């Protein structure tokens, strides 16, 4: 039996005149990896960003419908986005470590949420780096600039930075598209561990990646969620003709 972590009902999103998400309804399950696939511009990244309200930053965005996290409406006026984003962390397409040391990058979130105790921070930094499978590579020099790491290491650092605030959901927006195959593999391996503690939602344009790591997959096309189900089923027996065309490589 799956527990619903995020419940989305009749979600519509408009960029000015552009109707970017059309009546999306889906449940996202706890401690699973859910992948969003679809061609460029299909709305999958836009949808991901509605789940921690990163769209708030963009002007002229209008949203209606319901997004509930643990039965709380995240678009309610009473919501503190700082607390929401503590609970729903995010990893971006391009690794974006801050221009500071490895340690300070990971400690950024905990400090933001008021943790000052040095011992506590040390512990969080170590555990988060271990959780992102980066600790062994950087443990000797945590004071080194994060910008001196390789792209793959930077992305795992960003995952560690997200883990450090003990989120419950981690959103990943094409986290491996800027990385080499070996770094990609490391991050995919990490997913198996991450879902034991977290609910992971990943946008990817790589269908093989979705089949390798995701328990559930949703297929998006021009703002519409065409099909959603267990990854196995979606790829083996797609119900919609458009899904079938896409996964068999007829377009996209």
């Amino acid at each position: 039996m799956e527990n619903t972590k995020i419940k989305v009902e009749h979600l519509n999103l408009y960029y000015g005149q552009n109707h970017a998400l059309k009546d999306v309804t889906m449940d996202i399950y706890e401690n699973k990896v859910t992948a969003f696939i679809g061609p460029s511009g299909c709305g999958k990244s836009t949808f991901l960003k509605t789940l921690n309200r990163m769209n708030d930053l963009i002007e002229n965005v209008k949203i209606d419908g319901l997004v509930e996290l643990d039965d709380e409406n995240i678009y309610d006026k009473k919501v503190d986005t700082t607390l929401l984003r503590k609970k729903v962390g995010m990893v971006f397409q391009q690794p974006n470590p801050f221009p500071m040391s490895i340690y300070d990058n990971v400690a950024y979130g905990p400090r933001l949420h008021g943790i000052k105790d040095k011992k506590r921070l040390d512990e969080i930094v170590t555990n988060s780096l271990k959780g992102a499978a980066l600790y062994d590579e950087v443990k000797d020099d945590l004071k080194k600039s994060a910008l001196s790491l390789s792209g793959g290491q930077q992305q795992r650092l960003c995952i560690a930075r997200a883990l450090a605030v003990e989120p419950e959901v981690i959103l990943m927006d094409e986290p491996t598209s800027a990385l080499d195959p070996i770094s990609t593999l490391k991050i995919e391996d990490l997913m198996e561990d991450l879902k034991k503690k977290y609910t992971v939602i990943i946008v990817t344009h790589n269908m093989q990646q979705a089949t390798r790591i995701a328990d559930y997959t949703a297929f998006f096309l021009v703002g519409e969620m065409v099909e959603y189900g267990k990854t196995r089923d979606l790829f083996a027996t797609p119900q919609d003709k458009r899904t079938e065309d896409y996964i068999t490589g007829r377009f996209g």
Partner: protein
Amino acid sequence: MHNSIYDKRVRISDNVIRVLIYLSAFVSVAILVGIIGLVVIKGAPHLSWQLISTVSSSAKNTFGILGNIVNTLYIIVITLLIVTPLGVGGAVYLNEYAKGGKLVRAIEFTIETLSGIPSIIFGLFGMVFFGTVLKLGFSILTGALTLALMVLPIITSSTQVALKSVPESYRAGATGMGATKWYMIRTIILPSAMPGIITGIILGIGRIIGESAALLFTAGSSYYLVNDFFGHIFKPGGTLTIQLYLSMTKARYDQAFAVALVLIILVFVLNRITHIIANRMNKEKG
């Protein structure tokens, strides 16, 4: 029959352009070297320990500029203390908080216009507003407030350029962590923009050191030393450029060149110090 790849043509236009470019580079350097050279040659013989460690005395008939050096440093420090928070704050508002629109364009237009106003008009305004209306009289504080208005556009525009060059991904990253706007600005944006802000401060220091017209009306030309460290800012005080101007009007070119040499050395030293501070900050950032 093979075509030779050896070029037999003489590319006249290329050569002419090259000569012109070298020439303009040479002229630029020559002008700078010429000015500094003249000041050093004319000023160095009159440079003495007495000049920089005493104030002028009519009883002993000596000339000293310690008072002016101190006044210059005072004006630089106080002006920067006033203008840096204002300029950086204004730039942060324009770049991070304001959402375009008429108000922002009006503010930006005002700041641009401010930078085009002749300094003597600032002097006039400072004398009337800070000196008379606010009753600060002829004082270092009046001078510093007046200069703050003049330096404001420099600090604001260089800070704005620096803020615009902070990668968007840092903002997304910090927001994604749940940082509030101000927390993000304090911990990520301003530290990343620091080199640009420092550049603005260096330019500002240059403007402050070089200014004389605006100060003549506001800070006066006194060259005395005052013991009271804080009370000094409410007293008149002439900077090095003011003293230079006074020496010129008295046709004491020996004094004028000595003061000019001290000024150039001071500019050089202050630039070095600011660079060292900036580098140290960059290193800490990792």
